């Protein structure tokens, strides 16, 4: 995909902005994709239950290939690997990828290093939706919390968008301000509902901090199409996103339909963020730290930045969730605490190491 995009580049003006280190970046993309695969296999073997790597390999061989092997393991080991750990770490990977891509997109669109996927109301909308779900009569709750969270996120951004729109254009500053203001308003309602929620408070707080604790396959199946389609759409807009880094006016002159690109990217980034948060809650930090880390290491060219951030986000969140479920096992830590706790110091370290401008 990235290769194809490269061939189509016809704008030497923008291309010369970036140092030409394409080959090493392509290696980096392949390398991170491989690392993601390895991460999945290795973390599958890690958990509060001790399962040796040897057992894991034999279970995987028996289950995934059709080689018949006498099971030498208890049947609950199979349940633990295939129905608990695998869906959980796949969802963590998908959510990590989605948040990192959405973060990169927002930072690019807003040309603002502080932008994160939650900047224009997604998180507050999702949180309000989820909290309303928690307040519903209990027998309706199970499916309604993720649904309401998803709807809340999309609605919040739609409202912000329609407020910020001036005629046919969308000034980014107005969009941010409208997002922050509406976010504060929604957060106020959410806080009030939390205070009034009584004994449901623990469930709500746990959702808000983000957790993958009960992930099963149907959640993975629900989220995958949204995140997959949204991510592909964003990847395909890497070049216009690069050009828009110059200036919207210049981008327009260079033949890019800026307003249309903004709308598509905002829509796609919002959709994948909403899909990411609706089951596991508001996981912070991934969307801001992964794009910056990748940018610090491999540079700001979106054609590489977007795929690299996708894989890095997935790896980071899988590792964070592994820490969340093992550090204090058999009890769990909300993964949002881990992402901030591990992510922030690492990011600060990178900042110290590479004292150059991020943007």
């Amino acid at each position, binding site marked *: 995909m990235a290769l194809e995009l490269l061939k189509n580049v016809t704008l030497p003006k923008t291309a010369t902005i970036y140092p030409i280190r394409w080959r090493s970046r392509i290696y980096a993309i392949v390398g991170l994709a491989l690392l993601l695969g390895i991460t999945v296999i290795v973390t599958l073997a890690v958990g509060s*239950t001790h399962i040796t790597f040897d057992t894991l390999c034999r279970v995987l061989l028996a289950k995934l290939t059709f080689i018949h092997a006498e099971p030498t393991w208890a049947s609950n080991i199979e349940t633990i690997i295939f129905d*608990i750990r695998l869906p959980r770490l796949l969802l963590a990977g998908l959510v990590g990828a989605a948040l990192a891509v959405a973060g990169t997109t927002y930072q690019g669109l807003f040309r603002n290093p502080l932008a994160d996927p939650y900047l224009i109301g997604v998180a507050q909308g999702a949180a309000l939706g989820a909290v309303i779900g928690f307040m519903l009569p209990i027998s309706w709750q199970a499916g309604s919390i993720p649904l309401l969270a998803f709807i809340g996120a999309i609605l919040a951004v739609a409202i912000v968008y329609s407020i910020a729109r001036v005629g046919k254009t969308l000034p980014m500053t107005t969009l941010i301000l409208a997002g922050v203001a509406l976010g504060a308003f929604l957060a106020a309602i959410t806080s009030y509902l939390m205070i009034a929620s009584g004994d449901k408070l623990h469930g709500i707080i746990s959702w808000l901090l983000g957790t993958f604790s009960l992930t099963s396959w149907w959640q993975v199946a629900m989220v995958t199409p949204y995140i997959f389609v949204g991510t592909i759409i964003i990847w395909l807009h890497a070049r216009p996103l690069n050009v828009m880094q110059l200036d919207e006016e210049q981008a327009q002159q260079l033949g890019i339909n800026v307003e249309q690109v903004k709308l598509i990217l905002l829509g796609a980034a919002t959709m994948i963020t909403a899909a990411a948060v609706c089951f596991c809650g508001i996981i912070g930090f991934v969307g801001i730290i992964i794009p910056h880390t990748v940018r610090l290491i491999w540079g700001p060219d979106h054609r590489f930045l977007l795929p690299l951030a996708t894989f890095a986000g997935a790896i980071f969140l899988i590792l964070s969730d592994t820490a969340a479920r093992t550090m204090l096992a058999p009890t769990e830590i909300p993964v949002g605490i881990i992402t901030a706790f591990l992510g922030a110091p690492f990011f600060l370290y990178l900042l110290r190491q590479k004292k150059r401008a991020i943007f």
Partner: protein
Amino acid sequence: MSHNIRENLCILGALALFLCFSCVPQSPPGNIVDGLGRSVTIDKIPQRIVSLAPSNTEILFALGLGDKVVGVTEYCNYPQEAKTKPKVGGFSTVDIEKVVSLEPDLVLATQIHGKTVIPALEKLGLPVVALTPGSLNEVLDSITLVGKITGQSREASKLINDLGTRIEAVADKTQNLSPDQKPRVFYITWHDPLMTAGTRTLADDVIGSAGGQNIAFDISGDKTINLETVIYRDPQVIIASVGMGTGEDLPWQYVQTETRLKNTQALLNNRVYKIDGDLIHRPGPRVVDALEQMAHFIHPELFK
């Protein structure tokens, strides 16, 4: 533990006898040390009592002090009469102004009020006593303490005698079981996130006293637990806490519908039970009801 109870009972019995014979009119309790180790002076027998926890309310009513209770929390739903009392707020969110306006001469708090509510009330000159029972024995101790403070020592020792006898009856059947005879019990308090009661909780003491082994033996307090840990430890009995505040049985439904639990011993042998969360989590007299139910669930062969 049962030895302790016997000892307690003897002392209390003696105390009760002493009280009967001495026939002293109720004397002011004077200096007492409460559950948080605070020393409190109660000069005269309290006539207007505010309770800041459902368990405290239940103890007060069980000692026949219902008409002296002038304020309770929104969660105080037992006995029925408690619901008609003025409300002073939620469990941790106490409306200090409301408490003051009720002019209590005793406020019964718990450990969660230790850092915030108690200093605020003390500053306003209200006598506050905290009850912090974390086990069956400590519930009995709390009842004794409340009896002493309120001049109802006779009622308290009668109640403790009764509760103690019932605890003994369960202990007699379960204390000599070997570890193999004690089923592994998973006690689920909430399903999303999956939560359980680990060691140093009242529920853990109830499970142990009822002759079960809590699978959350390496967790301390009320915490989340990994689903994979639950499956790996393969509980033989699952007890779902229901009706916490809302009167619903969501954790129980979760256990029934979670496909990943269906190969555990408890599901295979259809041994999933409901227990009223208000009984087992409130360190009041009704926790003994929870103990009897729990014993019946875990050892149906011993408790018919």
